[in-house]
């Protein structure tokens, strides 16, 4: 069953080379997909368009069968109304490279505030969910701490918990380990691996090729705004078909 799809996505910026040229991706329930590619390839723009932080020039977006954006007769993207988009935003979560936690909220409040004040869920239920997420993320001791008191790895775990507390159908990660020291990278990769084991649907933009190979079902290699190659993770990394993919992967094999 399809959880998310982006169809024929195009996006150009006035003053940036970062573009998307006719990209289509479909993600099924429980699938873990890694997106790799050189910087400036458009993979971050793709993720920002998928999470509605950036608008497409042309193309369509679907979340769990609901239409978030479609083309008008001129082939330009139009978006659903504000109310509809708010509903759709409950269907996905995004984990940022620099965490973007709310510094004035405690760990617990970072996790519980949106479920309470955006989704208007029951307080008892939200608290239970938050407690179990903190437990899972090894943050139980840190419930009352503020983000500045935490290590980068802990902050990223809070931001994953914050996204999961919304009960999303799909979780997007934008280079979740790029802002972390190597020794902290491991703890985030372990968390993502554990989520994969629970069949959480995830799309991960990453530079960690080995990790992508181990945890992803499928890898998509993007360069210059187009999908150059995609396929089962192991096959794509060990036996790339395209010359550009080979060149890119060679940079990681020292």
């Amino acid at each position, binding site marked *: 069953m399809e959880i998310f799809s982006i169809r024929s996505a195009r996006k150009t910026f006035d003053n940036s080379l970062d573009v998307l040229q006719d990209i289509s991706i479909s993600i099924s329930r429980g699938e873990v997909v890694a997106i790799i590619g050189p910087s400036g390839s458009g993979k971050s723009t793709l993720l920002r368009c998928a999470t*509605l*932080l950036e608008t497409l020039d042309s193309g369509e977006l679907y979340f769990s069968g609901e239409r978030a954006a479609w083309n008008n007769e001129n082939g330009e993207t139009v978006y659903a109304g504000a109310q509809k988009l708010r509903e759709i935003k409950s269907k996905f979560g*995004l984990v940022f490279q620099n965490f*973007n936690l709310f*510094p004035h909220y405690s760990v617990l409040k970072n996790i519980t505030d949106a479920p309470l004040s955006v989704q208007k869920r029951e307080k008892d239920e939200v608290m239970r969910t938050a407690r179990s997420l903190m437990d899972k993320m090894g943050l139980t001791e840190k419930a009352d701490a*503020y983000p500045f008191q935490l290590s980068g790895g802990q902050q990223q775990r809070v931001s994953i918990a*914050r996204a999961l507390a919304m009960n999303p159908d799909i979780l997007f990660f934008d280079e979740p380990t790029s802002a972390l020291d190597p020794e902290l990278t491991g703890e985030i990769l372990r968390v993502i691996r554990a989520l994969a084991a629970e069949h959480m649907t995830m799309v991960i933009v990453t530079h960690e090729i080995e990790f992508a190979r181990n945890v992803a079902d499928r890898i998509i290699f993007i360069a210059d705004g187009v999908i150059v190659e995609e396929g089962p993770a192991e096959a794509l990394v060990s036996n790339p078909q395209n010359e550009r993919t080979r060149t890119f992967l060679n940079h990681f094999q020292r």
Partner: protein
Amino acid sequence: MRFSVMLSKLGEGMVTSVLIFTLTLLFSLPLGLIVALARMSKNGLLRSFTRIYISVMRGTPLMLQLLVVYFGPYYLLGIPLSSGYRFWAVIIAFSVNYAAYFAEIYRGGIESMPAGQYEAARVLGYSETQIFLKIILPQVIKRIIPSITNEVITLIKDTSLAFSIAVTEMFTVAKAIASSEKTMVSYAAAGVFYYVFNFIVAFVMETIEKKLNYYR
């Protein structure tokens, strides 16, 4: 005049000074936020209008603005001056002037907020109003408190400008006593009053700043 009588007269003037101070803050702090939002609005007309407003308020003396607000209704519209209007002319002129300064402080604070805070909140589905009130504004307040403290302290001293339209605040009283009693003592006493007032306000602001230090 006995020293104690002088002090009690100055004290009465001080009540007016404190009232001017309090009412000006009460009106100019929220007004400044509205002006700041207009200054950053998508509407070009609104933006230009507030830019000119801020430029005029910061580019002309407060005393001049006070005189315009007080005498303007009479000279421009022929409305007779009432003595009750004196005090409110001070409040209007001060509030409008300080709102311009506060607006620029708010704007600086709002523009210093990292885009990631907006993005994280948008992805979580917060409405734009919720984002501003729950996520952005509390952090902006923490960032701008030191600049606000500066303005607030200047305001205490600016209350003495009400003297120029004969509102009997503390400085007006001090000057009246000085000329009738041929003494400098009333000025010295007024100076002490202003200093103590400032000291208290600075202490309060510092306490607020410390209270907000629970996060970084």
